[in-house]
């Protein structure tokens, strides 16, 4: 049995309590929610935080609701809740696509969207989905809250805009009409991290792509937001040629690294191929 190094444990009763614990305990404290990234790292002794602040009782952060023209997801919402949310599936099928291929039911029962985004693993799926959905993220500190664009959230592998005494509180997805979205992933085996994955959200108007988001996972130091691919799609009528052009740009603009999941050339190919497939499905869903 792999066992972690010694640590102290605190259980927060409110967001304010969690924030004050973080403030008091300093940089060697870590928040723990589902724990499906942090605990394995601790057991392998790759991470050895001195304090854990357990936020699993912060039910105030556990919700998925429509509010002020946005779909708002509390950071403590579990993967399983995202997968079971009819509202989320109807407005952003990309999240249901992604959740079906994230890890396994055991992980999805416990893991949270906030934990997934804050872990900032370059291969993490919800980050790419949020990039495609043009999500905005609410970060709270003792001094108040601030809202960050998804494109500014990740600062590199395992690094985010969330400060040491802050907490990611909410994910906001702007709701617009004539939307369609999809997520495509290649994995070596069910439950494995992506070899590469692509998420696409489109918003149609008069038969053309009024706006679009393209996000990639596992092909960069963090989730890749494909601005050039989005640019070439925006305002155009969907066609295979158009998708090819966007796919080429997605492949060109990512920066995969070779590892056991595959060489750079293959991952770059997948970035394009999966972008093309996600575009087809997203547009079909928007028009369907």
């Amino acid at each position, binding site marked *: 049995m792999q066992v972690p190094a010694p640590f102290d444990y605190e259980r927060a009763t409110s967001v304010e309590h969690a924030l004050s614990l973080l403030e008091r305990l300093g940089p060697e404290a870590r928040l723990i929610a589902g724990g499906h990234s942090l605990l394995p790292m601790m057991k392998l002794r790759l991470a050895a935080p001195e304090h854990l602040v357990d936020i699993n009782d912060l039910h105030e952060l556990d919700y998925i609701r429509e509010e002020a023209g946005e779909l708002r997801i509390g950071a403590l919402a579990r993967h399983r809740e995202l997968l079971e949310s009819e509202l989320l599936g109807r407005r952003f099928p990309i999240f249901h696509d992604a959740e079906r291929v994230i890890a396994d039911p055991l992980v999805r029962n416990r893991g949270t969207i906030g934990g997934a985004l804050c872990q900032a693993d370059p291969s993490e799926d919800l980050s790419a989905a949020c990039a495609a959905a043009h999500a905005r993220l609410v970060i709270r500190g003792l001094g108040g809250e601030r809202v960050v664009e998804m494109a500014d959230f990740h600062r590199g592998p395992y690094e985010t805009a969330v400060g040491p005494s802050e907490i990611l509180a909410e994910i906001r997805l702007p709701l617009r009409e004539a939307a369609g979205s999809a997520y495509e992933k290649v994995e070596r085996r069910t439950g494995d991290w992506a070899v590469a994955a692509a998420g696409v959200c489109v918003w149609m108007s008069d038969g053309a792509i009024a706006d679009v988001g393209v996000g990639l996972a596992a092909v960069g130091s963090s989730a890749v937001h494909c601005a050039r691919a989005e640019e070439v799609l925006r305002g155009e009528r969907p066609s295979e040629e158009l998708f090819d052009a966007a796919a080429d740009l997605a492949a060109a603009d990512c920066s995969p690294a070779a590892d056991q999941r595959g060489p750079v050339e293959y991952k770059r*190919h997948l970035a394009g191929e999966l972008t093309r497939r996600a575009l087809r499905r997203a547009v079909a869903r928007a028009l369907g």
Partner: protein
Amino acid sequence: MATAEQPVLGYGRMKRKEDPRFVRGKGRYVDDVSLPGMLHGAVLRSPLAHARILSIDTSAALQHPKVHAVITGRDLEAQKLAWAPTLSADVQAVLALDKVCFQGQEVAFVVADDHYSARDALELIDVEYEPLPAVVDPRKALDPDAPVIREDIEGKSDNHIFDWEAGDRDATDAVFERAEVVVAQDMIYPRIHPAPMETCGCVADFDAVEGKLTLWCTTQAPHAHRTLYALVAGLPEHKIRVISPDIGGGFGNKVGIYPGYVCSVVTSIVTGRPVKWMEDRTENLTSTAFARDYVMRGEIAATRDGKIQAVRVRVLADHGAFNATAQPSKYPAGFFHIFTGSYDLEAAHCRVTGVYTNKAPGGVAYRCSFRVTEAAYAIERMVDVLADELGVDPAELRMRNLIRPEQFPYRSKTGWVYDSGDYEPALRMALEMAGYDRLREEQGERRERGELMGIGVSFFTETVGAGPRRDMDIVGLGMADGADLRVHPTGKAVLGISVQTQGQGHETTFAQIVAEELGIPAEDVQVVHGDTDETPFGLGTYGSRSTPVSGAAAAVVARKVREKARLIAAAMLEASPADLEWEKGRWYVKGDPEQGKTIQEIAMGAHGTVELPEGVEGGLEAQTVYNPSNLTFPFGAYVCVVDVDPGTGQVKVRRFVAVDDCGTRINPMIVEGQIHGGLAEGVGIALMELIAFDEDGNCLNGSFMDYLIPTAKEVPNFELGATVTPSPHHPIGAKGVGESPTVGSPPAIVNAVIDALEPFGVRHVDMPLTPARVWAAMQGHTEPPA
């Protein structure tokens, strides 16, 4: 199907007797053993693949308030225990002395009050290493400038372990020289790991008053372990009790003796307290016995019309840092010389070279009988390569070359005597079940649409059930197995066997063997196994040995009891034994069936007051040691259907048809369960499993995040068929089946994927066939039809 109302009196489907405790969470595994005062051990392992140890400072760890002892190689050296013999006439460092030879090698052992403290204390041990260049690729191990790994072996100046050959080289070369068609194929059976769900571990409890060691251990061979501890550590053998309780999968991983076991025994003696040591997953994957790692070049000679004439194979075998592979002593490459497979050849030859590398030691038979898996893969891939060369359907090519039924017993060109076989009906059944012709039509239609569908066929012959003892031993212990059977006065029986289940269902199958022979309910037979104080000596469960060897012992001992019962029945019936006839469960007087005694009545008589004839002792029991006269040769025909995504290289196994012939089926449900498990493992081996290293010898697959084993999502609903060709020399005609599916399925799956890639001109891709590898194979070749 058996029900409570219909007890199973022998062979047939019957729910497993051991399952109630497993499904209720009442199994008792090594890690469930908890003794008063028990301490917990942990191993400090080398972070480097090859390095000199300059110093080890354990003082800080010893000062940890919960630490009781820290031992190093130097401490063991004083007791002459720093090196332990391997199963292959080599030695392995229990704890490293002057250098480490693989990443994960054992360097120090800590015992503490609890597992957490033992792990914490590992971080307090300071080891100073001087890194050395590592030998990672076996193809470079014999380079003149390769670093010498085994400096502990006197006079060793290279990394060569052995050369071994089988077959007739000259005769084979002669056939190749005049052959119309010769094809060659390089292929690698990569390093993989048995990865049992339960990792390895033990609880060592040395009783200083009695001078007795009790060792609960995850072992597939408790008796062999006991004898080895006696021989190596000098403990008297009768004062060693090895208990192998419920075991969560073995697959060959639990055959050997690991350093952690030895350290646990030593520290139990030193501290006077029981010591538990259980590996974590990383330790299991990175330091215990791996499997395969064969670099092979196969060549096949044939006539233009598809008659296979000769095969030759050259193998480079990576055995890691210590030669700890588990093979019968005479066979350093195991039974690899079964590589001629199921085909009638004129000549064959193989040559295997074993080398050391800076990788974990092993080379065990992972769910296979001593390198049969590598051999079956080599021949079944080569036959497909030949079919491709000749433009002949691969199923048809196999059909033309199968050994014919009248040729059995068949003496192979590498020295085996195949006991029995009837191959063609098995292959025909598999093709019919699959709808082979229709599948080929569908494949053509799909190819026209640019879809990649593949159909793979394999036909394998296994050689399982080692001995005979004159030919086969492990470290000098002959490969035979004992059994003893005691029938209690009320007719309930206890069967003691020398083999040990790790999930195979021995407690049911062996009870059914006795039930069949004595005609009593299988429920009335308790099978005792896994405890050396309670069971007769034998070599253990691996290489599909249990049914061929120990199952035979169970049948023989039951027949001995039956014969004794005849004498007692004769006394009870006041008849001559020669005048009695047997029907299932009962001896009766010839011509007067009313006059008879059941086994239960005889058992009571044997323990009662019946006047026994001269020379017949009371009681109803017997014992035996079964020494097989030959191995058994199960075989099978497998058909796999895959779909490959042309855009991503992902492989989906759509269907898998498996026709197995394992001779007599004692419990068809258990046989089918074994086949399901092995096929699932075959999917993993073919598509995803790999123990890989970087150029410095760092293992890249030290957790289940990186070492992928298949899930229910990757395996199809298996379609099983059976033919039955009983073994002529086995008492009940059974042949063993646990390993057939792992042997036969990887080539069927790979053949299917290669078949799918035919439009790209692909002839071979090495396992595992990950999406990246499949996609790479498609590049730079012909485009598939649009």
